[in-house]
């Protein structure tokens, strides 16, 4: 599904982020990536999403070499194949909940009816025509999850999705993400600081300057 081949990335001579990083994520796998601040977790996500480019090495998603795509192609690929969940939700305030969810569908030229199905799945039935300012943080993240999955992407990238949420809500959301990924037969990468959050993934990797190292305890081998 996702293959990282000998990735090297640096922002400057002094600031080498990765050196020769390789990793393979299998289809249907949901992995959590942990690591210290500044170790390059977000950079890794950006490289995978085609928003940033490695100095050397290749990122392959389903056989497509992301690093070879130009900005336009990368965007089109991203639109179809990826779903994003952000720490601060990034729901467009002037669109209704269902319009927000429908965005990826419309972008891919698909009919918009699946948006409401997904909203129902994330537990927001009846809230379709609400505006984002009427929703709580947890609800907003549910919308984001729906938006990330509505167009049935192969890979979901979630960057600290519970960073802005209280523990109880966070737990619900993490469960929801896992369930939805599994239900939609997608793969997923969850980047987080939180041990508890990471525990909801199939297994946990720790990002170090030396590469991705499997954590001692993988809850769901």
């Amino acid at each position, binding site marked *: 599904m996702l293959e990282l081949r000998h990735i090297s990335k640096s922002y400057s001579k002094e600031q080498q982020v990765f050196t020769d990083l390789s990793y393979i994520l299998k289809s249907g796998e949901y992995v959590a990536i942990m690591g210290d601040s500044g170790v390059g977790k977000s950079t890794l996500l950006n490289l995978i999403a085609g928003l940033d480019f490695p100095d050397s090495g290749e990122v392959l998603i389903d056989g497509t070499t992301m690093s070879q795509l130009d900005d336009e192609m990368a965007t089109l690929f991203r639109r179809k194949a990826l779903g994003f969940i952000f720490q601060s939700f*990034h729901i467009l305030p002037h669109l209704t909940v269902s319009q927000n969810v429908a965005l990826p569908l419309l972008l891919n030229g698909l009919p918009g009816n699946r948006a409401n199905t997904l909203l129902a799945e994330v537990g927001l039935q009846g809230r379709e025509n609400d505006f984002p300012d009427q929703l709580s943080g947890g609800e907003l993240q549910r919308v984001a999850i729906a938006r990330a999955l509505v167009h049935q992407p192969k890979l979901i990238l979630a960057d600290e999705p519970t960073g802005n949420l209280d523990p109880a809500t966070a737990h619900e959301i993490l469960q929801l993400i896992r369930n939805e990924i599994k239900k939609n037969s997608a793969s997923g990468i969850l980047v987080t600081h939180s041990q508890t959050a990471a525990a909801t993934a199939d297994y946990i990797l720790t990002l170090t300057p030396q590469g991705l190292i499997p954590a001692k305890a993988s809850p769901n081998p």
Partner: protein
Amino acid sequence: MKILQLSGWLLLAEWRTRFGQIIVAITAIAMGVALGFSIHLINSAALNEFSAANKSLAGQSDLQVYNKQGFFDEMLYPKLAQYEGIKQANPVLEFTAVVSDKFHSKDHKLKILGIDVFRAASISPDLLGVPAEGKAMDSFADDTIFLSPAAMEWLQLEQDDTLFLNVGLEAIPLRVAGGLTRARAGQRIGVMDIGAAQWRFHYLGLLSRIELKLESNAQYEAFKDRLSKELDDNFYISEIADQEKRLSKMSRAYRVNLNMLALVALFTGSFLVFSTQVLSIIRRRSQLVFLRVMGFTRQQLLLQIITEGIVLGMIGAISGLAIGYGCAVLVIQLLDADLGSNFFYGLKPTIYFNLWDASLFFMIGLSVAVLGAFLAAKEIVNANQASALKSSHQDIAMNRAQWSWRALFCLSLGLLMTVLPPVFELPIFGYMAIALLLIGGIALMPWLALLVFSSLQNSVARLSKNPIILMALARQANASNQASIALSGVLASFGLIVAMAIMVLSFRESVDQWLDHVLPADLYISVADSGIQGGLRDDEQKIINQLPGFIRSDFFRVQPLTLDPNRPEITLIARPIDTLNPESTLPLTHDVIDPYQLPKDSMPLWVSEAMVDLYGFAVGKKVKIPIDGIWREFFVAGVWRDYGRQFGAVQMQLSDYQALSNDLSFNTAALWLDTQTAMSEAYTSLQQLPFSDALEIKQSQRIRKTSLDIFDRSFAVTYALEIVAIIIGLLGVAASFSAQALARAKEFGMLRHIGVTRKQILSMLAVEGFFMTTLGIILGFVLGWCISLILIFVVNPQSFHWTMELYMPWNWLMLISGIMLVSASFAALLAGRKTVSVDVIRSVREDW
């Protein structure tokens, strides 16, 4: 102290990050102030010069005695010279003569003052001629004239050259004996001996005024009363101050209107400041609320934002003053002070920097900026701290309903003001109505934007699944406050442009039609207007009548008349008028008495609109005007439109005039060609008349063209205003788009993540810009149309005393709309480009 320091930091930080917008806001203020200030400077300089020139003519006299008829019997002079309490009486004969060489150019008149050097020496020494060495007698010779430098330059004459002036139908030579002691720059006058002037120019026995110097212990008012009791009703006694008043009154409506228009431009600038400030606040919303949370009091926060406005306003206003001053100096040097109005023709005034006026304009500019900041600040200060801190929703939580109410209040108040009468003969309420209309219209914008874009969104949603259009529309509909703020600049400026364009075109078309009506004949002849006996005599009329090729000729007698010494002269026109069908000769309004209802026992008089406003000469009233010095009663039979004489004119039956005055001479003739005669033939036959040198022969086509040229020149300033308004409007669009684009960096970042291409974001911005501008243009159009109605039906009649019909300059409006639309979309695009090119990755991260 610490707070001040903090406040300084915040200010600098804020300005560093949005330097471009700050510049735009400052530019808007500066342009508004500059425009207003330079117009004001030019006008007041011209007026000062005008009154200084006038003063130099009137000299140092205490009082001047005039006659409402213009000229009066010279025997008043010895009477006044020996009158108790009068130290010195200075007789003056003032008239204009046509310069023979310049006869065929439009500008051909020279003002001539006949003076007695011995009497003038102590009262108006500036007017004394400077004869050549050893030729002192030239000062009172019978064949000499002294010319001001401007007149010499204009006539290209030097000392000892000969100047030919037309008198009635002959040209007389005068030797240029020298210059004048002191003449104002640009003041074109000739001075000659009063005795010679009376004789050469056929003013024997007549004077124009007598200037009086009183004994030093004289009581002006008591003396004036005593003297006016002894003089008959036709005389009036004025002081220099009266004349200045009269002078300033003549041009006041024109000056005030220009200043008002400049203020409207400034006003438009204030919307720009407002929108810049609001957008900047929106962007910093959580930062500002954070400050509140940190312990900034409401007042401190308010002060912080207002301080920004003050600094902005100060920089803008000061640079505006500098630019305005520079422009004024440049305009005076390159063009003239006239600004195309013909009020201050030929003067070369000096621009004086008046600190008081400058501070006034500075204050206006500053308050505009502060007001903009204040309105913006109020919103944020009243915001709910908690929700604002948390919310990613950036639309202002303005209470739409409340704003709509305010807007409606403004609009209805504005409507009410359009029916109020003028104040001090100025359309103050008319201008207030325009301001209220603009404010009301803009305040109504959020509500209107919501209405329009929601319905548009719904209907478009059904038709198209294009996410770009959907997103753009959704944004317009649901973030309508922001949209309307951005729009306010477009709205105000476009509204202004539309209003001006409609007004100017309506005016021009009306003038055009009026010209058709007042110039029915093919050719017009006028006699050089020198001397009261200088008109066409009986035999000369006969000769003209007998010329071949003409089927009809009408002869007129036109002369100036003073009804009220505190007002400029009116014009009396005596001509043949078909009493039963006056519309055939006069451009009548609907205010006319049925010709068959006219009273048999009184003479009919048709008055221009100004007469109704200024003198109360309403239709059906019996009024009195002096004919040949005797006040006669007339019946006002109708009102006609007159764009030529702002201070009033009356027309009467020629036969009535002749019966009353015994004046059988004419100074104007209208001639109709028969179908066989070509214009050039007729022209030639007129030119071959023995007295043709003194005749001004004009084709009505030519008069038309000249009149419209003058019209266009007068409105050149309004075109400048329109251009400034357009620039301010576009600046506004660009500013608000770039502000929004920056504020929406996160949104764009997210969209890029989920697969929206750069191009799509840009097109979304362009579409948004398009929608927004379209709405702005449509609303601006409606607003502008309303304003133009106020200008046409309230402001113009109140200040210039003329009405006009409404005409729409569709082509021009379409063109401007197109330009605005394209440039607004383009501005949106440009603003977006900058944002899209910033780091998309960083923009979605919370911890940057």
